[in-house]
């Protein structure tokens, strides 16, 4: 499957020697939802701007749908919702879409129909002709999503798409993004809302101080290697726990069993054998998973710790 978005060794140093991106390499496949996580100032928005040629990289190159990002044609099938976007407030919702559609080479009745349909889709039906200066932040965010979808893009770059939107609106926007995914669209999502990313994204990368410190599928990132939860019918006795502790790296009692950390994956067999030998009924065995938040915090702290000595 061809990569819809490629960043090939992208670095960006702003004036004043601020290194916003350092050798960023990533590829987002067509049809997947990709989440980019990072702290404020980690370089997420700069990376998106490099992809859209709003910011020129100091080194490396970026491609959208196989076309170099420097070329205007690369943005022909791309929709973008920036963070903190600002619509000219003299426009109505409809005229703003007509303006942005015109800049995308659209026009005529087709554009008008598409704009009306999209305003309906994002929940702005009935306020098409109201000036944007009278819109709430949530309404502007919905309008932002509508303009991103205007040219029926194959790639959507969304920077905090649910920012300022109420929970109901968030669910609606999530629904729209899922529908886009079903239609085979590629979505690149910048978000602080980890639960949202966890729910929507196929793959995630964590950006810290301009570098990608971790990346992979949600499954890969949240799986805690060599930590298992053993569920038992009754809580374990102190003796059994003491025997287990001698067998594994660490054993932590749970209400309905025990969580064990082992040195090698095969060691879990010995744990089960011991429990069975002591007459403990085992109900289940599961690899332990971390939450995305835990993974994110751990990655950011690791990266900070690695960079501290270098300073």
């Amino acid at each position: 499957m061809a990569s819809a978005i490629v960043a090939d060794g992208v670095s960006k140093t702003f004036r004043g020697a601020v290194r916003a991106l350092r050798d960023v390499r990533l590829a987002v496949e067509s049809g997947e939802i990709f989440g980019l996580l990072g702290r404020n100032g980690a370089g997420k928005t700069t990376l998106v701007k490099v992809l859209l040629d709003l910011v020129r990289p100091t080194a490396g190159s970026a491609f959208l749908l196989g076309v170099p990002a420097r070329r205007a044609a690369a943005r022909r099938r791309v929709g973008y919702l920036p963070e903190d976007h600002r619509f000219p407030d003299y426009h109505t919702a409809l005229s703003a879409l007509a303006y942005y559609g015109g800049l995308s080479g659209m026009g005529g009745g087709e554009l008008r129909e598409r704009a009306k349909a999209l305003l309906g889709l994002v929940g702005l039906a009935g306020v098409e002709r109201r000036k944007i200066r009278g819109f709430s932040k949530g309404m502007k965010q919905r309008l932002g999503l509508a303009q991103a979808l205007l040219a029926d893009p194959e790639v959507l770059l969304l920077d905090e798409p649910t920012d300022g939107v109420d929970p109901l609106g968030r669910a609606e926007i999530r629904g729209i993004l899922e529908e886009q995914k079903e239609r085979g669209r590629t979505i690149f999502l910048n978000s602080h809302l980890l639960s949202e990313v966890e729910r929507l994204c196929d793959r995630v990368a964590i950006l810290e101080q301009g570098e990608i410190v971790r990346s992979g599928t949600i499954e890969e990132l949240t799986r805690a290697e060599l930590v298992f939860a053993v569920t038992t019918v009754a809580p374990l006795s102190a003796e059994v726990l003491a025997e287990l502790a001698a067998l594994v790296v660490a054993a932590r009692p749970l209400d309905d069993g025990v969580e064990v950390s082992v040195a090698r994956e095969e060691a879990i067999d010995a744990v089960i054998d011991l429990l069975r030998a002591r007459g403990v009924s085992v109900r289940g065995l599961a690899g332990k998973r971390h939450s995305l938040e835990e993974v994110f915090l751990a990655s950011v702290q690791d990266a900070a710790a690695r960079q501290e000595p270098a300073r």
Partner: protein
Amino acid sequence: MSAFLAIFRDAWRESLDRRSVQVLVLIGLVLALFCASLSFGTPDPDRALADHSQSISTFTRRIGFFGGRSHTQVDAPHETGAVRAPQPEDDLPAGIEGARVVELRFHSTADVDDLARAWRTFRSRHPWTGDAPEVDHARAIGSRERADFFRERLEEVGFADVIARPIDGDERAWRVAAACPRPIELVASWTLHLSFGAFKIDVDEVSPAEWIVAFELFLANVFVGFFGMLVLLSTFASAVPEMVRKGSIDLVLARPIGRTRLLLFRYGAAVASVVALATVVFGACAAALWLRSGLFNVSFVACALTAAAAFAMLFPVALLLGVATRNTSLATLGSIGFWGLSSAVVQAREGMRMMGVASTRWLKVLDAVYWIAPKTRDLDHLNEFFLAHSNLSPAAAARAAAMPGADVNAWYSCGTSALFAAIVLALTVWVFRRRDW
């Protein structure tokens, strides 16, 4: 094309939102209404011929449309007969339509000769400084030169086909025949009615046609060229700083349109908007004046193009400041300030030249700055030139365009101004393309 139309509509929407278009249209309507309230009395050719024959020894010249008057009085007493229709014994050539005849009798031929000499001197005088060669009183004057004096003197005030002949070979007495095909171009007394006849002003020393052209020039250079330009620059100078503001520019540059095209389309849309607005204002005023006077001046409508050209020369400055600073106030005030500065330079240079300053260090500095700066002030003179030459007779056009020192080389002026605009625009595009947004 759809991108240009989108930007054009966006520019209009912004102007409408800021009420700038409404202000300009209101100014246009008020001006058109004022024009429609005027009415012009047509001078009586007989009375004008009698008056000019009586005052034939007084030479008057206006200095440009709005300048003062230069007078020369020659002591040449004479009697003037009544104005009458030509008679067969007048022996006038056939084919002079509607000619009228008047006879003038001087005390001596020397008086006529003095008039002819003074007339030559008057005509060669520098109209601004008054410098002129000394009158050579000893120079002999022939019969032909005396006849030319009467002809030129009357043609200058709007008569045509003037023929002057000595009566019965006596060169103290002259029979002068003159036609007047366009009384509206006759320099004579007439009455101007304002506000649908509520006020009236008696006008002399200027023909109704010249007055109309002068008024059109006033509208073009002062109302539209100055006040209109202030409104236009204030309106459109904000377009680019608004577009490049954080949060706005992302939405625009994320579209499949190159930065150069985007900026040039912005520029083109603003200039096209100015052409449209100025055409409406000039067109409405021209139509109103045409209805009231019968004189339709196509060049007056074409002044919309010079207004747009002036805007096109200055707008790149607003674009450059807007792209470089993202500050609307700076872009607006900067472009207006630059306009004032360049006009001051052009005017100072013009003033020095009019005063006959040939070569000083300051003039050289002004010449250098003039070469670089956009010459919006020269467009005022071009308006003057085009208006005067549109539908006035050559004599009336010469009277109307007699602005000393304003010998504008249109190609040089427009060419160097366009070069300035192109360079500033190219610089703006370069900054816009290079910058990270």
